[in-house]
């Protein structure tokens, strides 16, 4: 192979390493790096441009390869694995369609700050730019949906790039990194020795917060009369210590705690200080407390538009402190009074230490809590029952009750069921709630559940799904079967793309344009066709038994739970509205919206 030799010869000579280390193929170097980096599981799908890597994998049984049915699912499975274990997820796909199919999951990981390494095959270097078979400009396509990406043109660069990619994906604000490896680079050889620890010349994320700013933050906190801790996915990303520090900080201050969708579980939902999720489908008490607070301490969250509602009415009378590892998150949507750039766990630890040093005692927030209890008394998550149909909220509440005492991990798809799960399934620990927050990717839940189950073999992993979303990656039923993963899917089947239908009801006078799930499959038979157990829940009488059977049945189980078709997800802050303009139930819906509101997502 003449080209291969040309590539090998053109690499920079590394005399010291060359004499010691044995020459290895690029594919071998990749596998060695993965082993050295502690990678146990790779989610992938073979194809022409990665055949040398697949051949090398054959000789590396330490790395478990999970064969998905579609590359998008490989990326979501890697996200589920990463989010539930704290380790980076690794994906291996071929060039062209393999890479383009992975892009949705890569973007999802970028939006939700999930550490992920995606290795894509590429056509041989001499074919790049010739519109070769299965060629796509993968680095070009993924430039803006990755934290960083590489095209490796010589095998001598591979080891350094792979180690650097893991460093970048897992440090600072985590995110996806793509490594594009042409086929000839996988075949050509170079000496391999484990690279030194990465000392990157330009990428140096802050870890510790500035002590002076932390001091200011502590002083603002000590002066607050109506503080609230607004926490996000950053607390989960920072690791279990950060969740422990959050609990300690909350215990010290006695302040109420709310969280974004991504941060659920960092603070125990069973705590009396927990207000529930905030934002568009957050609780009345969380949103009102944000609105009336005099100090918002934002910990690893990013003032997303789903959280703030109308910006000019967002928490108008509060001082705001923003702790974030990514400076670009600061003042992006909401101007804050103080920003501390650093790892949220480290900053919280410093704040706690400083509070202790100052002899801080828990202030009397009785008046503040009395107001919060007043808002809580509105019981914004309540729903009306009594009809023949199962209310979806009831199904989730019963699922929650039936799974107490087990190590449960919940994944979701995207839509009404996702919000109902966030509202009615309560989390006491981090890394137990896996959902697509930023990108809102339907089809996330099943592959994420597969990834989570692989990382947590003994956990009860349940994908709470909708009838429309589940069909977006339904082919992954086969993956779970192949690897004997006892994943459970709990479909809230209302025969609609429920959230689309809800918005059409609220914003477009109930013109249900293309939101009805016509021609749904028989989910039970479909499950059985893949070797799963299928269970249908038709009405109240089946609910408890169906849930129990799902839990008790070994192996993968799909539950088709028929729920009320037209129920809406409340409470809700309509787009373009302030936190205080919450809709609590259907009677508050006026049915029309002006153009300004319609133009917002």
């Amino acid at each position, binding site marked *: 192979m003449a080209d291969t030799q040309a590539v090998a010869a053109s690499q920079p000579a590394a005399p010291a390493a060359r004499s010691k280390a044995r020459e290895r193929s690029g594919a071998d170097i990749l596998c060695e790096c993965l082993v050295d980096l502690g990678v146990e599981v790779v989610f992938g799908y073979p194809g022409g441009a990665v055949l040398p890597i697949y051949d090398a994998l054959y000789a590396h049984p330490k790395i478990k390869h999970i064969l998905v049915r579609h590359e998008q699912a490989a990326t979501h499975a890697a996200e589920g694995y990463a989010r539930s274990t704290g380790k980076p997820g690794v994906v291996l796909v071929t060039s062209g369609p393999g890479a383009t199919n992975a892009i949705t999951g890569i973007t999802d990981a970028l939006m939700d700050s999930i550490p992920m390494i995606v290795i894509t095959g590429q056509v041989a270097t001499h074919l790049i730019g010739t519109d070769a078979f299965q060629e796509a400009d993968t680095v070009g396509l993924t*430039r803006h949906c990755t*934290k960083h990406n590489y095209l490796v043109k010589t095998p001598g660069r591979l080891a350094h790039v792979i180690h650097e990619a893991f460093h970048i994906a897992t440090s600072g604000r985590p995110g996806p990194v793509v490594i594009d490896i042409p086929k000839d680079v996988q075949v050509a050889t170079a000496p391999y020795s484990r690279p030194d620890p990465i000392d*990157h010349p*330009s990428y140096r994320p802050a870890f510790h917060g500035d002590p002076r700013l932390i001091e200011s933050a502590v002083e603002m906190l000590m002066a607050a009369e109506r503080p609230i801790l607004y926490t996000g996915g950053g607390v989960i990303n920072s690791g279990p210590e950060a969740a422990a520090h959050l609990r300690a900080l909350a215990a010290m201050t006695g302040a109420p705690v709310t969280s974004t969708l991504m941060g659920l579980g960092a603070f125990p939902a069973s705590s009396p200080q927990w207000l529930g999720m905030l934002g568009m489908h957050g609780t009345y008490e969380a949103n009102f407390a944000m609105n009336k607070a005099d100090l918002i301490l934002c910990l690893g969250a990013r003032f997303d538009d789903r959280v703030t509602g109308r910006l000019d009415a967002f928490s108008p009378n509060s001082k705001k402190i923003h702790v974030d590892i990514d400076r670009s998150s600061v003042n*992006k949507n909401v101007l804050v009074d103080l920003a501390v750039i650093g790892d949220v766990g480290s900053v919280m630890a410093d704040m706690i230490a400083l509070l202790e040093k100052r002899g801080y005692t828990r202030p009397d927030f009785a008046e503040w809590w009395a107001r919060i209890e007043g808002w809580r008394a509105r019981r914004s998550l309540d729903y009306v029952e009594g009809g023949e149909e199962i209310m979806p909220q009831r199904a989730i509440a019963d699922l929650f009750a039936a799974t107490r005492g087990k190590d449960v991990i919940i994944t979701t798809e995207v839509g009404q069921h996702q919000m109902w799960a966030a509202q009615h399934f309560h989390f006491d620990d981090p890394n137990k709630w896996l959902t697509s927050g930023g990108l809102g990717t339907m089809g996330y839940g099943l592959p994420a559940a597969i990834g989570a189950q692989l990382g947590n073999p003994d956990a009860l992993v349940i994908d709470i799904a909708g009838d429309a979303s589940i069909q977006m990656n339904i082919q992954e039923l086969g993956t779970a079967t192949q690897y004997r993963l006892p994943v459970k899917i709990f479909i809230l089947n209302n025969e609609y793309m429920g959230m689309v239908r809800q918005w059409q009801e609220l914003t477009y006078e109930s013109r249900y344009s293309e939101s009805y799930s016509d021609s749904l499959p028989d989910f039970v038979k479909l499950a059985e066709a893949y070797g799963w157990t299928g269970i249908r829940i038709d009405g109240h009488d089946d609910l408890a038994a169906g849930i129990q059977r799902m839990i008790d049945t070994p192996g993968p189980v799909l539950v088709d739970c028929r729920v009320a078709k037209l129920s809406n997800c409340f409470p809700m802050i309509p787009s373009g509205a302030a936190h205080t303009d919450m809709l609590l139930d259907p009677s508050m819906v006026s049915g029309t919206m002006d*153009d*300004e509101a319609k133009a917002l997502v």
Partner: protein
Amino acid sequence: MHITEEQSQRHVLSLTVANEAGILARIAGMFTARGYNIDSLTVADITQDHSISRITIVTNGPPRMIDQIIAQLDRLVPVHRVVDLTEVGPYVERELALVKVAGTGDHRIEALRLAEVFRAKVVDTTIESFIFEITGTTEKIDTFAGLMRQIGLVEIGRTGVVGLIRGKAAI
């Protein structure tokens, strides 16, 4: 419904970046992806080992957008340093332009006279045309081009702005 726009300010950003494949696409693409403006962008490597390039970007936007642009540039992995020259204090900025002017008689004489006033150099000439080389601020070049437009401007090529802070310190 109408879309409103905020008041913009001009800012000159100076970046040092790793001189690697795709760096320009990464930076230019970040501007388009996030809806920021580029008025001009220059790039060339500036170290002996060719490992680092300086990119000078002239952009405009409301203050918060400028702040976001800097933060977004700063988080790109190959970006070493981002400095807003407009904010850090006195700085020098220059742009070079080649200006082709065609004409005979009075117009030709006037073009040469104006070039002298602007300290533009003649770098090419025929009986009917000149190419002037002019350096200066963007405003100076705009003015020069505006005058030449009236007496036979054919075409103009501009480098975009480069800038450095005044004094002995580096960014």
